[in-house]
């Protein structure tokens, strides 16, 4: 069940999708990962870090 759901979202049995900007070629999968990294970095900067105690 879970396997079928994931397979429908990410089809690994066919050729991947690529983005092209001139000589730059980037797979959609890598672009998604880079986007996630930017989001996580922004959250790490903006979200306050809660700690137990300070003095």
């Amino acid at each position, binding site marked *: 069940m879970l396997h079928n759901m994931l397979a429908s979202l990410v089809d690994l049995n066919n050729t991947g999708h690529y983005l092209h900007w001139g000589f730059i070629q980037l797979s959609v999968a890598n672009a998604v990962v880079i986007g996630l*990294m930017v989001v*996580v*970095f922004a*959250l*790490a900067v903006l979200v306050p*870090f809660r700690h*137990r105690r*300070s*003095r």
Partner: protein
Amino acid sequence: MSTDITTDAVAGIEEGARPLPGDERMWTARLRGYLVRALPPGKLLPDRQPSYVSSWVYVFGVITMAALTMIILTGAVLVLKGPSWWHVSSAGLFVNSMHLWSVEVFFFFMVLHLWGKFFMAAWRGNRKLTWITGVVCFLISIGAAFTGYLSQQNFDSQWISTQAKDGLNSTGVGAFFNVLNFGQMLIWHVLLLPVVVVVILALHLLMVRHRGVVRPLPRTKADRGAPQHTRSRQSSPPDATTAAAGGSATGSSDGDR
């Protein structure tokens, strides 16, 4: 009561490092003295951190190390069981996937750690070698990951190796780094490169402990000339400490600019 025990323990370490009269010139005594001065126990394993370490940005390095621990543990199991196990059995596929996803987490957070340290100019305050060892560790990790893809023993690794050989041979390294030689790539992946990564990471960490975590960049032009404890818009002085993970409360007194 507990304070007395802690104080006694620290005093005992310092006392134990002191050479006997007449032994001061021995190389062992001098090396021990240097190491104790450079990395006293309070710096090596501090209880408190500077207040500016209270940020999620400082967690990236810790997550990277946690991922490396998982990579080594799952990798050790894979080496012991072999490809006929990791390709066929359910447990083998699970451990193989854990190994792969630990690598994904490792690089994801290693690059975020790199971004964070770049934007805070973490090489300030005589921390150049800390920065350089981090970069070298990153580059060698890419080689370790590459040889891991070559060691999968499937069609994917065959495709990667045959594609990579032409590029590597064009640089001349193919004479001693043959990506089509599975035995050679496996040894690079499971022994040589992991050892180098772990050793450089240990040096990197010891340097962080020795120098302390770099202070944040000043927020305004006026702050650049002001004493660090009077900088504006800080809820607490930079020297204030907090119980948190990562970094060192000591060793940050040297110039950061």
